[in-house]
């Protein structure tokens, strides 16, 4: 779960990491009032769950309250990567002497947390990582040992920081780790972590991503859906706990397991079709959940046909068959469906399909090829490609 900048900064401040003075505004008028009171140059930052807002024009500067109101109203009209701007963070502009970079994330292969730090922070950090990987200091943190002073001394030495700057950097880096543990973070990042004119470190930007699987431990962090950005279908799938993503094509994909779902999409593409979306029902879905999934696909306007590809393991084919039959009966919608099911309770499942007049194919390739044909056949006009 991604936190927005202002949410991350709230946590940063609570834990003792210095951030610029700021105010969350929901309208240009609010921006104006705040800047008037503040009476200092500001930066106005759209609050969106994406990186690189700066490059996308989501961050503006203003010297006066009037100018702030003007640029804010531009921001409120902005849409970046299908996200509309609905709130902005107005902050006192920091007198940046130097832009550092600091983050903690998870190194999957090492199975450890890892610090990434650089003295060349800012918008080009990813390029720097590619061109000059040696300018990024990496230090792994074993969760059995946790962070020790020597880890942090090593980082500041590598970065060439000394004196107060080094001390403040180590303190912030230590707090980053505390945050990571306390909030089960997959990422804690500040870019830039700036050194200001007085030589003090301040987190000009702040990003946190919380491990979704840990949310039961963090009841105060309520699950964010960025609702305004989701289609009603995406919302419904999310509420049902499905993994569902909208795509550009015309074939709805239902499968169980991420790997099989992706393989099903890959197959459809290989046979010349295009997935309209993918919906992973996960492991051990009940007939009720399967019904919901099929319902969603049948009712989706972009979906011209549905591929159902089930390999039974934890998931039982009979449950899938029952859910499918019920959904078809209930909705009464007649879109082509190709089914392929195999594994746990396969025979029972196929029996249910037979009894209800739903045909099935024996292999994934056959099912994928068939649905592509069926969808192209009923398409009005030239299906092309």
């Amino acid at each position: 779960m991604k936190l927005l900048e202002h949410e991350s900064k709230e946590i940063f401040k609570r834990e003792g990491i210095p951030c610029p003075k700021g105010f969350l505004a929901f309208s240009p008028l609010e921006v104006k009032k705040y800047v008037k009171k503040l009476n200092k140059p500001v930066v106005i930052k759209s609050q969106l769950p994406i990186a690189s807002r700066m490059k996308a024009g989501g961050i503006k500067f203003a010297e006066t309250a009037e100018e702030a109101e003007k640029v804010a109203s531009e921001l409120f009209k902005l849409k970046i990567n299908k996200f509309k701007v609905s709130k902005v963070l107005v902050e006192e502009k920091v007198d940046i002497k130097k832009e550092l970079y600091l983050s903690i994330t998870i190194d999957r292969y090492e199975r450890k947390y890892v610090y990434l730090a650089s003295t060349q922070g800012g918008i080009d950090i990813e390029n720097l990582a590619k061109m000059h990987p040696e300018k990024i200091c990496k230090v792994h943190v074993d969760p059995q040992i946790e962070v020790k002073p020597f880890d942090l001394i090593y980082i500041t030495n590598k970065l060439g920081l000394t004196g107060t700057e080094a001390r403040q950097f180590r303190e912030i880096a230590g707090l980053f780790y505390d945050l990571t543990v306390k909030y089960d973070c997959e990422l804690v990042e500040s870019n830039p972590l700036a050194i200001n004119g007085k030589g003090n470190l301040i987190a000009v930007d702040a990003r946190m991503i919380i491990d979704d699987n840990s949310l039961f431990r963090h009841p105060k962090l309520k699950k964010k859906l960025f609702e305004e950005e989701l289609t009603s279908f995406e919302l419904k799938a999310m509420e049902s706990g499905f993994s569902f993503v909208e795509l550009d094509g015309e074939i709805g994909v239902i499968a169980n397991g991420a790997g099989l779902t992706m393989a099903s999409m890959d197959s459809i593409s290989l046979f010349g079709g295009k997935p309209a979306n993918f919906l992973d029902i996960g492991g051990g879905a009940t007939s009720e959940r399967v019904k919901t999934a099929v319902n969603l696909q049948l009712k989706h306007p972009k979906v011209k046909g549905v591929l159902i590809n089930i390999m039974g393991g934890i998931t039982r084919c009979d449950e899938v068959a029952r859910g499918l039959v019920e959904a078809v009966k209930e909705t009464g919608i007649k879109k082509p469906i190709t089914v392929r099911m195999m594994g746990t309770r396969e025979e029972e499942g196929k029996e249910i399909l037979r009894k209800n007049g739903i045909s099935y194919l024996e292999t994934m390739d056959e099912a994928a090829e068939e649905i592509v044909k069926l969808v192209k056949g009923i398409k009005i006009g030239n299906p092309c490609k």
Partner: protein
Amino acid sequence: MAILVNEESKVVVQGITGREGSFHTKLMLEYGTKIVAGVTPGKGGIKINGIPVYDTILEAKEEHQEINTSIIFVPARFASDAVFEAIKADLNPIVLITERIPVRDSMKFIGYAREKGIRIIGPNCPGVITPPKTKIGVLPAHVFKKGSIGMVSRSGTLTYEIAAAITNAGLGQSTCVGIGGDPIIGMDFVEVVKMFEEDEETDAIVVIGEIGGNLEEKLAEYIKETGQKKPIVAYIAGRTAPPGKRMGHAGAIISMGMGTAESKIKSLNEAGIPVAELPSQVAEIVKSKLEKLKK
């Protein structure tokens, strides 16, 4: 001998009284898996499918000293304790079926287990099968058949798909290992492939990967260094998947361009490992590799 599990595996099922635990205990018993005890705190004393249930592994081991392997179906928020209980009882391997375990927990118990030399398969995995001897997992038995193909996969259902095709092609599996789909897992491709390389019953290896992470690239690196001791064939799911959510700049810095289907396919090809376009093609490619080997 196959790898990891065989007829010597004497299994305790942790979370045996739950829906999945009891259902799959039945299926595993039907397959011939030597399940000797189950554990669910607070349920000690009852029997499930004829298997005695204990409150703790230690009590189970006092009655059944032969227990050496665990399979865990315990819900995510209690899974970490269950794994530590299995580690403390020196069970090895530990097959961790549970999904949605917080990654910090996984890092902790996997780190600890690895230091102790205990193998964790999973979390979020379908388990391991060595047909026809034993199945310690939730894999559908009938798609597997004794044979000489070692299979290792990050995916669950996709594995069954490809296993079925291999079986239908008249081949079969020495062992099939589902290492799990989580970001942090106990065993990686390199480790399992090394075991297959050492295993006399394995003639060829099938690797089923997917986008994300760099386990496939690391395997390619290892094979580039050491050479293919046995033919390896791969499949990578997610060629047409949209790019996943990224971990800010840090994600990009850490992954260094790895993680995409292109990166994985390119690395594997460079290591001389063919990557099938469709799951159904894997079996054919393996077959032709084996035939070449015979010549």
